[in-house]
């Protein structure tokens, strides 16, 4: 069953003007991207800086609107929904960011942050118990709910961010460079955690990363972006074993995978 469907999505930005009389040139950050993500599966979006992968993530999260194309979650066009309906749909899709130091409000306890998605939809019944459950699911203790972000290590903070993302039992999590800032040994723990959660909760994962080796370890399918254009798309095993586009090949070489 198709959970997320991205159809011919394009996003352009106007760059700052270079002279007073001319408008700035347009940059096409994402150029006609299309993909489908089935429930419970993992799709990797791979690209370097400026590839448009983060723009794509922001559009899937409905933080930004595409200039053309549609993004459908559960068959609903995110950009055609009324604000209240979009908000009601929010518990179905959540996001985990790269920076474990920037993704938690330094002035709020871990428990407060994890409960935020519940409060946002007024779904606060048994909130405390559900926060405790989420903490245990990510390998932390319920007592950690009372601590502040600075009391945790980077890996633990990323676990808290994941707990916040799963507390509403979403169908989709967008992981935007979610393991890129972590050390190799911590990264392995978090990747395993994401895989465990997917198997337990039936989550689909849109896994955005610049690191092909990480993508290859967790994703069913991959989509490779270069300057906003999709240069390769297919099953992860196949793309890794037999990349067709030279850009994909160069990424594999650089990552030491060939």
């Amino acid at each position: 069953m198709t959970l997320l469907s991205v159809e011919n999505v394009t996003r352009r930005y106007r760059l700052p003007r270079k002279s007073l009389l001319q408008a700035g040139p347009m940059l096409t950050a994402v150029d006609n991207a299309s993909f489908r993500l089935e429930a419970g599966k993992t799709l990797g979006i791979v690209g370097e800086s400026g590839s448009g992968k983060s723009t794509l993530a922001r559009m899937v999260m409905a933080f930004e609107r595409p200039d053309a194309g549609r993004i459908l979650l559960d068959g609903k066009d995110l950009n055609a929904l009324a604000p209240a309906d979009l908000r009601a749909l929010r518990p179905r899709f959540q996001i985990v960011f790269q920076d474990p130091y920037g993704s938690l409000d330094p002035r709020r306890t871990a428990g407060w942050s994890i409960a935020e998605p519940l409060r946002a939809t007024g779904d606060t019944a048994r909130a405390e118990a559900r926060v405790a459950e989420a903490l245990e699911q990510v390998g932390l203790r319920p007592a950690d709910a009372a601590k502040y972000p600075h009391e945790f290590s980077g890996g633990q903070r990323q676990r808290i961010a994941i707990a916040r993302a799963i507390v509403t039992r979403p169908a989709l999590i967008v992981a935007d460079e979610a393991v890129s800032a972590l050390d190799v040994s911590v990264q392995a723990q978090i990747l395993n955690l994401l895989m465990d959660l997917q198997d337990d909760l039936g989550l689909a994962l849109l896994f955005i990363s610049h690191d092909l080796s990480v993508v290859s370890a967790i994703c069913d399918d991959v989509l490779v972006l270069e300057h906003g254009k999709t240069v390769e798309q297919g099953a992860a095993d196949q793309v890794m074993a037999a990349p067709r586009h030279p850009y994909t090949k160069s990424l594999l070489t650089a990552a030491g995978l060939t």
Partner: protein
Amino acid sequence: MRRLPANLIIGGVLVAIVVGVAALSLVWTPHPENAMNIRGKFAGPSATYWLGTDQLGRDLVTQLMASARNSMAVALIAVLLGGSIGTVLGLLASAIGGWVEDLVMRFADISFAFPTLLFAIMLAAVFGPSLQNAILAIAFINVPVFARVARASANQIWTREYVFAARAAGMGRFAISRDHILPNIAAPVIVQATIEFAVAILAEAALSYLGLGVQPPESSWGRMLSEAQTLMYLAPQLAIWPGLCIVTAVLGFGLLGDGLRDITDPRLARER
């Protein structure tokens, strides 16, 4: 333990003295307020009148203490009022963006171009001189100052990932402003408030000096200066003491604000 900057310590001590004296005047002054001793006017310092008396024979220390209380009260109310309105406007501008943000910021630009005194004189001309109008005028000039500080700080916080996470959670703009933005811009706003407090004390003194602020029989440093003006050659001490008080208070709050800025600015904190 990090060493505290000198301006914070000196400012803190000066502020503590001024606020302490103002608070003390609520329960104790050497003589009853406004008690006149016509025969003892222009007295020099003595055991009874520590700094002497003024042209009506009122004890100078008592008048300075009462003035401190009035000046503090005016500055506090004005900064709280203007600061709250300004901060809320700045938060709204940042949260809504678009034409609302443009409107608030253009309003700020225009009111910045307007001299405080001129505005206070206008208010006085229309509604008559009163303490209330002086407070309103000082509050009004504070609104754009705080709106700018709040908006600039808030715009930075809006780009943080935890704010995006809150949006992903389904939180609305106003709830995010309340839960995340306001607590995280509190530091720069408080710093600004301390500095504006110093400005407000000065503004109150200026307005009272012109007769547009605190009205008799209540006294304030500005009023004391204004009354002493005609007696400058006869009794210069009547102008010097309130003048010194204004300098102390303004310097104290100014230094305290600078010191707070130093320790709350992460860029500076990291270098230490």
